């Protein structure tokens, strides 16, 4: 992998827990203590019931590819031309965008089983990348 850095992440008081979780090796999903629903991206209140009583659950990190692209242009290091980026639907039901690593072309399709690969990309940025469920 290139030494070039990925784009920096803007973190605020609503999203801090998510990034802190990744630093501890956990993929967290915001959870409402009042209505028990999950939401991602996280926010200051529950979008379902407007409660401010929020905590987080740890995801299993397993899911499926809901959609995907292959990014060709513009691509700058550390990314490689044609690298797949996926929209993962987690088992818990929420979705998130992830750079898809360690995959062969035939492993990138809508419905494919995937799992999280929490990765320290550099000193500052730790991301929930994903990879095929069976490599």
């Amino acid at each position, binding site marked *: 992998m290139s030494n070039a850095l990925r784009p920096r992440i803007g*973190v605020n008081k609503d999203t801090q827990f998510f990034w802190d979780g990744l630093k501890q090796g956990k993929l967290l999903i915001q959870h409402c203590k009042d209505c028990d629903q999950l939401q991602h991206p996280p926010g200051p209140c529950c979008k379902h019931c407007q409660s401010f009583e929020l905590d987080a659950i740890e995801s299993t990190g397993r899911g499926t590819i809901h959609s995907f692209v292959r990014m060709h*242009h513009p691509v700058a290091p550390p*990314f490689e031309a044609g690298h797949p980026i996926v*929209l993962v639907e987690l088992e818990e039901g929420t979705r998130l965008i992830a750079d898809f690593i360690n995959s062969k072309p035939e492993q990138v399709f809508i419905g494919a089983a995937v799992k999280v690969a929490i990765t320290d990309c550099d000193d500052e940025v730790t991301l929930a990348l994903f990879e095929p469920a069976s490599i």
Partner: protein
Amino acid sequence: MSKRTISGKSAIVGIGATEFSKRSGRSEMRLAVEAVLAACADAGIDPSEVDGISTYTMDNNPEMEVHRLIGGKALKMFSRIDYGGGAACGPLLQAAMAVATGICECVVVYRAMNERSEYRFGTGVADRGADPTYETAAFGWHSPHGLITPASWVAMSAAAYLHKNGATTEDLGRVSVGGRSMAANNPNAWFYQQPISLEDHQNSRWICEPLRLLDCCQESDGAVACVVVSDERAKELRHKPAYIRGAAQGSCDDQQSMTSYYRDDISRLTECGLVAEQLYRQAGVGPNDIQTAVIYDHFTPYVMTQLEEYGFCQRGEAKDFLRSGEHLLTGSLPINTHGGQLGEAYIHGMNGVAEGVRQIRGQSVNQVDNVQHVLVTAGTGVPTSGLLLGAEN
């Protein structure tokens, strides 16, 4: 219908534009002033009469300065609408409301940009600094993963759309070929006399699969402006009025800006459905009453989605609509008769509003017969807007 309506209370009576280029060689402010003065001249209205201005948040030219430079005397309403091209018809809604309620007599809307020569949107957001604002935090969900450009944000939804509906990238190509066929007849279009074939589309390089180069609109320098006055005054002016029969904005269904990936069905543009429902209700017409449409075409896939959301075909059937050529000049609903942003220029949708006016007047280079109503849509994937113009009020 509610008595409280903006429908038919105002009209677009002037349109103006600069040339469309890749390097204007002039300041954006100059482009804005040139287009506004041209629109006032087209309307036969002295620019000093302008008492309302609305534009987009991404425009770099303050309403105050444009008004000062055109010799304006009293500016009573100024506003700018958010979300880039999604704003395109929003300023017309502002104008229609201001005129219908008596706040203003003469409102100008404009979009002026050196987008190609000074700050290309297509390069993406990779080098934004980290700060705690909502917008930067929102970019954090995708940009560190390399999803950094408008094309890539659209491609993610497009892949889901194609998969769900059995459509192919050739269907996307049909949108592009159609736009370029219209531009080929338009001397003001960047791609004048440069039609393309479906083969050209399929041979163009990948930008972000499933999108190729020819699925992405061009980047442009230029400006377009329109003048809006009341329906009574419109009747006294030189051109046939393009009555604003409907104007609407929409944001709904777990809306995000370009990345509504968390809604139930990411292959849809439900915010366009919200705009459509409002426009048709305001105007008291439906999709079958529309003879031609300007369907915002920054990227081809969302043209397909919009054809469905605005009711020109059933959900999932845009591919059939395109395969039978209904979007071409010989079809049942010629779209983007100026060439669209794929073919004419990317002026963030305001050039599409001007084309809607030309179709009402009978002045398009690709004129459609017996035009009674024209739909104009705005940027998609973001909170959006739409306009329904009528030949009668």
